[in-house]
C-alpha cells in the first residue's frame, strides 16, 4: 500500500500554520480565500481518501517515524474519510456564508475558523485517546472566541456558559483518559481493543470517557447547553458549529465503543435510555422555543438521540444507518440554518413573533425551508427519508421487545417534530407581514426598528447557499442507491475493527 506519508499530517499541519499566518497577515482577500479554500482543499483530499479507504483499506502515518507502539498515529479508514468529507464541505460552505454576511470581518474570525478546522481534522484521524482530548480542545478553544465575536447581545453570558460546560467536561474526559491509562497501561485505541468487554475496571474507565463525550454531544439530560449556546450565536456561526462540535463527539463515541467494547454490552442499556429520551425530549422541547434557530437547535438534540440509537443497536446495518443519519442531519441542519441566517440577516430577528408572511415574499427561501423541515421529519423527497427508514429497519432487527420501543420512540419523536415544525412554518411563513424590521448596522450589529418597506428583501447572494444545500439534500434522496454502499463500507469497518488494529499496531 503506497500512502503518501505526508498527506495525513498535512491535513492537521496546513490549516494550523495558515491559521497562524492569518493572525499576522491581515489582508481581507487572503483571509477570505484561505478561510473557504482550506476546507475545500480538505474536501478534495477527503474525496480521494474515500476512494483510497474502500475495501477495508486503512491508511496509517506514524508521525515522527517512531515505531508503532510509541508513535503518534494518524489513521484514516472509511468512517474517517466519509465524516471528513461531509464536515469539511459544510465548513467550507459555512465559511462562505460567514463572508457573505460580512461576519468574517470581525476580529480574527478567519484564523479561528481555520484553527477549528485543524482540531476537527485531528480529532477525526487520531487513534489515541489523549490526542483526541487535545484535538477536541484545539477545536473548542477557537469556538469560545467565535461565540464571543458574533451573535446577539446575549453572547457574553452564553460564551461563559459554553466555556464552563466544555472545560468541565474536558477535565472529566481527561480524568477518564487517565483512568483508562491507569487500568490498561495504554491510551492507543488499537491497543485498547476489547479492553471494555474484558474486565469491569476497563469498562468503567471507558464508560467515563464515553459519558463525558456524550455531554459534549448534547445528549439528554445534559443537552441544555446546546440550544442556549448555539441559538445565541449568529446563524452562519451556528451553521459552522452544528456540523462540527456535537458530531465529532458522536463520531468519537462510535469509534471508541466499536473498538474497545466490540459487542453489545451493559453500557449500551444506559445509552439506550439516553438515546430514546434525547430523541423525545428534543422533539417535544422544540414546542417551547420562540426563535427559529432555537427550534432547530432542539431538533439537533433530537437528531443526536437518533444517532445514538444506531449505536445501541450495534449491528453493521445500524451503524451504517447511524453514519448516514449523521451525514444527512449535518446537511439538513446546515441548509435550514443558512436559510434562517439569511432571514435573520435581512429582517433583523429570528423571533417567531417578529416574523410572518414570508412565503409570498421570499419564495426561494420558503421552498428551502419547507424541504429542510420535511427532511428533519423524514418525509420524501429528501435525504431524511432514507435516514429514518434505514434507522427503523435496523431497529426492527433488535432483540426481544426492543423494536417496539425504538420504532415507537422514532415515530413519536417524528410526530412531535411535525407539530413543532408546522408551528415554526405557520409563524414565519404564513400570517401577516411584520410592520417593522431591524436593519443591519455595521457598528451596533442591529440598528433601531424601521418600517418594513417593499424593497427589503433577502439579497440574492444570501439565497445561493440555502438553495444549493437544499439541492444537495434532495439529490441525496434520488442518489441514495449509489451513496449507501459507502456508508455500508463504513459500518462494516466499525463492526469489524481488525483491519484498523492490524494497521495501527502491526
Amino acid at each position: 500500500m503506497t500512502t503518501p506519508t505526508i498527506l495525513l499530517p498535512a491535513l492537521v499541519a496546513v490549516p494550523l500554520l495558515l491559521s497562524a499566518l492569518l493572525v499576522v497577515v491581515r489582508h481581507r482577500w487572503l483571509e477570505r480565500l484561505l478561510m473557504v479554500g482550506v476546507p475545500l482543499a480538505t474536501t478534495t483530499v477527503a474525496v480521494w481518501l474515500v476512494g483510497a479507504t474502500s475495501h477495508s483499506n486503512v491508511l496509517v502515518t506514524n508521525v515522527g517515524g517512531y515505531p508503532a507502539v510509541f508513535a503518534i498515529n494518524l489513521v484514516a479508514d472509511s468512517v474517517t474519510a466519509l465524516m471528513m468529507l461531509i464536515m469539511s464541505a459544510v465548513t467550507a460552505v459555512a465559511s462562505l456564508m460567514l463572508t457573505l454576511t460580512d461576519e468574517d470581518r470581525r476580529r480574527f474570525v478567519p484564523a479561528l475558523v481555520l484553527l477549528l478546522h485543524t482540531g476537527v481534522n485531528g480529532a477525526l484521524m487520531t487513534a489515541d485517546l489523549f490526542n483526541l482530548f487535545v484535538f477536541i480542545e484545539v477545536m473548542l478553544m477557537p469556538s469560545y472566541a467565535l461565540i464571543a465575536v458574533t451573535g446577539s447581545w446575549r453572547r457574553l453570558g452564553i460564551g461563559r456558559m459554553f466555556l464552563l460546560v466544555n472545560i468541565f467536561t474536558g477535565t472529566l474526559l481527561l480524568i477518564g483518559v487517565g483512568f483508562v491509562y491507569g487500568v490498561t497501561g495504554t491510551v492507543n485505541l488499537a491497543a485498547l481493543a476489547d479492553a471494555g468487554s474484558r474486565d469491569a475496571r476497563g469498562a468503567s474507565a471507558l464508560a467515563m470517557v464515553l459519558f463525558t463525550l456524550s455531554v459534549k454531544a448534547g445528549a439528554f439530560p445534559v443537552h441544555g447547553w446546546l440550544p442556549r449556546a448555539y441559538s445565541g450565536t449568529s446563524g452562519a456561526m451556528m451553521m459552522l458549529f452544528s456540523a462540527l462540535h456535537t458530531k465529532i463527539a458522536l463520531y468519537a463515541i462510535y469509534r471508541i465503543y466499536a473498538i474497545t467494547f466490540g459487542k453489545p454490552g451493559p453500557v449500551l442499556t444506559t445509552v439506550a435510555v439516553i438515546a430514546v429520551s434525547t430523541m423525545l425530549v428534543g422533539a417535544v422541547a422544540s414546542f417551547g422555543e420562540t426563535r427559529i434557530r432555537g427550534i432547530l437547535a432542539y431538533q439537533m438534540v433530537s437528531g443526536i438521540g437518533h444517532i445514538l440509537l444506531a449505536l445501541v443497536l450495534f449491528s453493521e446495518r445500524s451503524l451504517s444507518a447511524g453514519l448516514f443519519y449523521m451525514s444527512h442531519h449535518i446537511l439538513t441542519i446546515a441548509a435550514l440554518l443558512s436559510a434562517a441566517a439569511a432571514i435573520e440577516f435581512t429582517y433583523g430577528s429570528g423571533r417567531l413573533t417578529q416574523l410572518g408572511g414570508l412565503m409570498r415574499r421570499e419564495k426561494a427561501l420558503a421552498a428551502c425551508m419547507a424541504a429542510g423541515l420535511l427532511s428533519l421529519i423524514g418525509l420524501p423527497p429528501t435525504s431524511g427519508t432514507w435516514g429514518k427508514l434505514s434507522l427503523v429497519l435496523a431497529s426492527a432487527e433488535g432483540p426481544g421487545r426492543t423494536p417496539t420501543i425504538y420504532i415507537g420512540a422514532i415515530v413519536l419523536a417524528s410526530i412531535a417534530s411535525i407539530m413543532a415544525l408546522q408551528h415554526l412554518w405557520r409563524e414565519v411563513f404564513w400570517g401577516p407581514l411584520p410592520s417593522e424590521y431591524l436593519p443591519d448596522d455595521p457598528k451596533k450589529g442591529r440598528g433601531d426598528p424601521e418600517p418594513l418597506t417593499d424593497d427589503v428583501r433577502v439579497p440574492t447572494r444570501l439565497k445561493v447557499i440555502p438553495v444549493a444545500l437544499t439541492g444537495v439534500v434532495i439529490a441525496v434522496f434520488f442518489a441514495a442507491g449509489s451513496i449507501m454502499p459507502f456508508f455500508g463500507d463504513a459500518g462494516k469497518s466499525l463492526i469489524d475493527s481488525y483491519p484498523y488494529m492490524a494497521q495501527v499496531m502491526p
Partner: protein
Amino acid sequence: MIISITVGVLVAGGIYLMLQRSMVRTAFGVSLLSHAANLAILTSGVPAWREDPILNVTTPDQAADPLPQAFVLTAIVITMASTILMLALSVIGHNDDLLRAPESGESHRP
C-alpha cells in the same frame, strides 16, 4: 492514599467554587478541578518515587513512567489557555452581582 485524598479535596473545593455566581471564583474552581485531574493522571502511572525518565541516565526499571508526565504537561498548557480566557471573560463581562445583562451597544427587543 495521600494523593487520592488530595484529589478528593481539590474536586470538592473546585465544585464548590464553580457553583458560585462570580466568574472569577468559577475560574479558580476550574483550575482547582484541573489540578485534581492532573494528580489523578499522575497516579495512573506509578505513584511511588522513581528516578527521572531520561534515556542512558536511568534504567527503565528505575525510571518513572514518562507518559503520564507528558499528559499532565499538555493538560497544564491547555488549562492555562482556558484559565486566561475565563479571566478575560470575567473582566469584560458584567458585574456578577447584578441581574441585568451587559450593555454591548446593541439594541434588543424583548
